[in-house]
C-alpha cells in the first residue's frame, strides 16, 4: 500500500451510520468472516465502496499460526471477500484460534520457535495461493508467553515477514499492551521491526484489571499512552494508514470523533470527521 490513506476506522454494523457520515474517510476495515462472499454487500459497506472508500477484509478465524493446515473453505471465503470488496490487500493475525478440532474463541499466541515460524510460513503460503492481493500480518496482544520461546519478538516477527514476504499490520495498542504486561519498553520494538513494511496500523483501547494486567479490549477508550506511541512511531516512519478499532460498548458519536481526531493529531494526518 503506497497510497497514503490517513486515518480510518474499523467498520462494524453497529456504527455503520456513524462511519457513513465521516466526510474525509478513505480507508476502513471489515471483519472478513462477516462479509458474504458473493451477492449484495451489507448496506453500509456498499455505500462506502460507492464513495470510493478502500475497505480491507480483516480475517480473524484462519488460524495461520495453527500447526494444522488452514481450512481451504475458510481461505476460499477470505479470497472471495477480497474480490467482492475489490480490496488492494487483506490482513490476518499471527495467532492460532483452534487446535485438535476445538475452537479457542479468541486469538492465541504461538510459541516463538522455529517450528512455529515454519507453521505460519506454510499457512501464509497456502493462503496466498488463493489470494490476488498481498496479505498483511498482525502480531497480537498476548497475555502470556509460551515456555519454550527461542526467539525474541522482534526476531520472530521479522523472520515471519521475510519468509512470507508479507506486509505488516502493526497494532500499536498490542505493542503497548505486550510491553506493559511484560515490563518492557514498547518503543524498543519499533527499532526491531521493518517499519517500512507496515501496510497500516490498528489503534485501540483497553483497560487494566485490578491484578494489574492490561487487557486489549477494543471496548474501552484509547489510552493517552497509546496515542503517544502512535506519535513516536510516526516520528520514525509514518505508516500509510492508521485506523481506530472498536469492537463493542460503542460510545456516543462525539467520543468516536474525539478518538479519530486524536489519531489524526498524533499522526499528523488530516481529520476525517465532520
Amino acid at each position, binding site marked *: 500500500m503506497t497510497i497514503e490513506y490517513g486515518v480510518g476506522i474499523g467498520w462494524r454494523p453497529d456504527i455503520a451510520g456513524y462511519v457513513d457520515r465521516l466526510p474525509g474517510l478513505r480507508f476502513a476495515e471489515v471483519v472478513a468472516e462477516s462479509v458474504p462472499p458473493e451477492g449484495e454487500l451489507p448496506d453500509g459497506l456498499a455505500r462506502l465502496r460507492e464513495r470510493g472508500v478502500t475497505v480491507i477484509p480483516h480475517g480473524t478465524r484462519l488460524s495461520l499460526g*495453527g*500447526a*494444522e493446515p488452514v481450512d481451504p473453505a475458510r481461505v476460499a471465503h477470505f479470497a472471495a471477500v477480497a474480490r467482492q470488496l475489490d480490496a488492494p490487500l487483506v490482513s490476518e493475525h499471527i495467532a*492460532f484460534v*483452534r*487446535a*485438535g478440532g*476445538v*475452537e*479457542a*474463541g*479468541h486469538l*492465541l499466541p*504461538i*510459541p516463538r*520457535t522455529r*517450528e*512455529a515460524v515454519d*507453521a505460519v510460513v506454510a499457512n501464509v503460503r497456502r493462503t496466498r495461493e488463493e489470494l490476488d492481493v498481498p496479505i498483511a500480518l498482525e502480531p497480537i496482544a498476548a*497475555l*502470556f*508467553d*509460551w*515456555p*519454550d520461546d527461542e526467539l525474541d519478538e522482534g526476531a520472530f516477527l521479522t523472520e515471519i515477514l521475510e519468509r512470507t514476504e508479507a506486509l505488516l499490520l502493526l497494532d500499536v495498542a498490542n505493542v503497548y499492551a505486550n510491553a506493559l*504486561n511484560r515490563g518492557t519498553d514498547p518503543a524498543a520494538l519499533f527499532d526491531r521491526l521493518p517499519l517500512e513494511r507496515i501496510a497500516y496500523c490498528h489503534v485501540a483501547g483497553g483497560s487494566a*484489571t485490578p*491484578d494489574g*494486567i492490561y*487487557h486489549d479490549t477494543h471496548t474501552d477508550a484509547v489510552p493517552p499512552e497509546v496515542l503517544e506511541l502512535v506519535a513516536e512511531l510516526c516520528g520514525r516512519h509514518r505508516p500509510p494508514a492508521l485506523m481506530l478499532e472498536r469492537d*463493542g460498548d460503542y460510545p456516543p458519536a462525539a467520543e468516536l470523533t474525539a478518538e479519530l481526531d486524536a489519531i489524526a493529531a498524533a499522526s499528523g494526518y488530516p481529520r476525517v470527521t465532520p
Partner: protein
Amino acid sequence: MTGSLADRQAALVAALTSGAPLPGGFDPRLVEAARVALLRKRAGEVARNWPELAGACGREWFEVWSAWAATRPTRGSLRDGWDLARDLRARGELPAAAGAELAVREATLTYDGSAPPRPRRRPALRTVAGAWVLQAGGRVRVLRRPAA
C-alpha cells in the same frame, strides 16, 4: 513442554476451554487471566445473540454463563446460548423472562444439540417457561409471554 506443536496447541486450548490441566511451564496467573478474559468475551457475544437470557440473569449473567461455559468450548454464540438455555430449563432454572426467546428459537429452527440449527419447514408450537410461541410459514407469533 514436549510434543509436537499440534499436540501442545491442543493441550493449551483444552486448558483454556475445557478445564483440562495447564501444561507445564506456563505462568498459571497469566493463563488464568486469559481464560477469564476469554469467558468474558464469549459472555458478551452470547448476550448479544440471547439478549433476553442475559437480561433475565441480570447481574448474575457472567456467573451463570461462566459456571456453564468454563468446561465447554464454543460452538458459536447462537448454539452456546441455546445449549445453556436448554440446560437451565432442564434444571428448572430458566428465568421466565427468558422463556419466549428460547421458544421463538425452538419454533423457528430445528436443533438437535449436535448438528448446526436449520430452519423448520413445518409449523411448530413451543411452550417454554410459560411462554407460548407459534411458527407457521416462517412467521412467528408470541401467543403468551409471562410477566417478568
